[in-house]
């Protein structure tokens, strides 16, 4: 006879146990469903971050100025490798990393933990190292930035650090665009927790780095750097820079700065050689600034194009100072004031202008402001407004003193004269495209702002042509082409004064008239053998211009219908 009381209790206990089981099932399967599912996924899956390749930097003639190569780094952690297996592991690793067994063993003994055994290896080695299935040894995917053209346009392209972060030049300015966004993949792990790549699922889609297409032309860049190197060799200058720009839309066709550096071998170059002189060196423009004084006076109706200017006296007395001219002139027409680069004439024209008029012109031509070219360390130059001027300031500005400008700013200002009075800003990047070559940020023509009446710009350009035909810029002439430009020899400002024997030689000009398609500015810093711009910068301009027009296939001015 079954004890009914005991049976009842057993039944109740079983029922309660069943209830607990059901409750637990509901808790696991329904209430905590997501938590357990993610725990399960955590155990059998792994999320891998895959860095997308950095974008390329291409010139306008589609030469690769900077690109990336996939590489592999092999690491080891001797603490995770059994001591008695060190020799075996070292022997198996030796042929893979290109070292001897004893060398690897020495490194095992030297390091107490994680260290990089070998860097910059072929990615195929990663598979071979993984196949060793050795705990404490593994690989990391890395990327090496390569600059196939060496120092060509080095200061423009810039460089990246060991982590692949842009540090200078376009590499730094467009770091986010070039870098891209990493992708996240979910992969299944095997029994040894290694990823199998059999069930690869994209978790978060990344974006490969976008590539930049520059306005620079590699051939022109080479010509510019070659001629600058020649100028430095001939004049013993400390450095030189040059800008070649299309005045119609501001595209920079070449931007040379010497001494230069190879971004791929940074360690071989002095830190002071790493700056881009064309955008970072602000120097007094000297007489290359005179055309803007003339432009201002003509724009405000204070000077006629055929007016005679008194350039007599061998200089001008301003307040307590006498500013000398380099020669004694009499009455000169405006074009000859520029052609002969008369300081007296330029100062007398400047004195006709009210401070605010002169200030307005200087600002409109972009002096004292960055050009906003895509270079991170561009300087704005030095220009103080009329509130800081002394009695000598207008005279100083007339001959290119009390103001400092970069070659890039000067090229921008000369472009406004060359293109009929429109201010366009220099630019380096034409377009951005993705990995497949599809344009992401296509080329947009630049809309300029008028800073000079068209007739004033035209007359000024003609006057500057006279500088090359009969004035100080004869050495800048290119046979068959109508060239306009202006020389400028300035003392180099140093420690609040002017250093004896330290000069800067400039030549800024354009060709081929009447519709110039090139603006070229050459700046030679501290030439020693001869510092006059007419002998140093103008010939360099002439040589660059002659080779550039040939490479671009620009027809000569004479005899070609406009």
């Amino acid at each position, binding site marked *: 006879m079954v004890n009914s009381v005991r049976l009842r209790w057993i039944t109740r206990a079983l029922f309660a146990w069943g209830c607990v089981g059901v409750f637990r099932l509901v808790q696991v399967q329904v209430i905590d469903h997501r938590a357990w599912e993610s725990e399960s996924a955590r155990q059998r899956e792994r999320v891998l971050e895959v860095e997308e390749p950095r974008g390329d930097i291409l010139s306008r003639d589609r*030469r690769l100025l900077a690109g990336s190569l996939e590489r592999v780094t092999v690491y080891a952690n001797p603490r995770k490798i059994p001591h008695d297996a060190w020799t075996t592991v070292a022997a198996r690793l030796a042929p893979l990393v290109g070292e001897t067994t004893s060398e690897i063993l020495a490194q095992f003994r030297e390091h107490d933990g994680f260290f990089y055994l070998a860097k910059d290896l072929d990615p195929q080695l990663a598979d071979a190292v993984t196949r060793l299935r050795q705990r404490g040894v593994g690989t990391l995917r890395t990327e090496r930035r390569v600059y196939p053209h060496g120092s060509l346009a080095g200061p423009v392209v810039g460089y990246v650090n060991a982590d692949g972060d842009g540090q200078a030049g376009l590499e730094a300015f467009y770091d986010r665009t070039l870098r891209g966004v990493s992708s996240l993949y979910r992969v299944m792990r095997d029994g040894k927790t290694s990823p199998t790549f059999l069930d690869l699922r994209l978790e978060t889609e990344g974006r490969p780095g976008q590539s930049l297409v520059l306005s620079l032309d590699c051939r022109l860049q080479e010509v510019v750097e070659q001629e600058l190197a020649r100028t430095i060799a001939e004049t013993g200058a400390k450095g030189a820079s040059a800008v070649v720009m299309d005045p119609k839309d501001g595209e920079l066709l070449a931007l040379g700065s010497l001494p230069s550096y190879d971004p791929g071998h940074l360690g071989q170059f002095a830190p002071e050689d790493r700056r881009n002189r064309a955008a970072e060196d602000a120097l007094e423009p000297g007489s290359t600034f005179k055309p803007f004084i003339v432009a201002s006076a003509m724009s405000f109706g204070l000077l006629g194009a055929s007016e005679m200017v008194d350039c007599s006296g061998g200089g001008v007395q301003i307040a307590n100072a006498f500013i000398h001219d380099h020669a004694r002139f009499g009455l000169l027409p405006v074009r000859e004031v520029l052609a002969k680069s008369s300081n007296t004439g330029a100062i007398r024209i400047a004195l006709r202008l009210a401070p605010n008029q002169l200030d307005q012109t200087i600002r409109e031509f972009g002096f004292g402001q960055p050009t906003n070219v895509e270079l991170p360390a561009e300087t704005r130059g030095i220009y103080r407004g009329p509130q800081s001027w002394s009695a000598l300031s207008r005279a100083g500005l007339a001959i290119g003193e009390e103001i400092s400008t970069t070659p890039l700013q000067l090229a921008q200002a000369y472009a406004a004269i060359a293109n009929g009075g429109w201010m366009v800003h220099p630019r380096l990047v034409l377009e951005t495209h993705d990995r497949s070559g599809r344009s992401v940020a296509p080329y947009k023509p630049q809309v300029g702002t008028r800073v000079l009446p068209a007739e004033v710009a035209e007359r000024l350009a003609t006057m500057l042509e006279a500088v090359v035909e009969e004035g100080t810029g004869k050495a800048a002439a290119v046979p068959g082409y109508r060239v306009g430009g202006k020389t400028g020899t300035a003392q180099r400002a140093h420690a609040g004064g002017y250093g004896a024997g330290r000069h800067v030689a400039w030549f800024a000009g354009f060709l081929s008239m009447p519709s110039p398609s090139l603006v070229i500015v050459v700046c030679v810093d501290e030439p020693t053998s001869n510092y006059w711009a007419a002998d140093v910068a103008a010939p360099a301009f002439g040589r660059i211009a002659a080779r550039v027009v040939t490479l671009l296939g620009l027809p000569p001015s004479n005899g070609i219908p406009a």
Partner: protein
Amino acid sequence: MKVGGYRPANSWLRRQLDTRWQRWLMLCFGGAVVMSVLMTAFIAPRQSTLRMRYEIAQLTRAVDQLERQQRHLLLDRESLTSPTVLAADLDRLGLVPLEPGRVAFLTQAGDLMAPAATPTSQPVKTRPVRRGH
């Protein structure tokens, strides 16, 4: 009591065979057939998918390798044909860059215009500032 001469004979009795095992055998066989069909229907494609994934992984690796080689070759070509390298070769061979005076142009009217010849310059030999290549 003993009955003489009588021997009980049960030849009329036929041993009854237990045939239930045949049913079980049939059931097992049927089960095996069903399992085979199920495996063929569900597991085989999965196996095939797995095999294909291995093949895809191998092919992807091969494609990656080829892309890396292509990239290497592209960068090598760039550095070998760099204008800097070509200019150095030009110097070495004693050639001078083409100058405007030596280029003839066609006018819009179709006439060939040759500018006056200008003396050619000497090749540049000195490059003391630039390093790298």
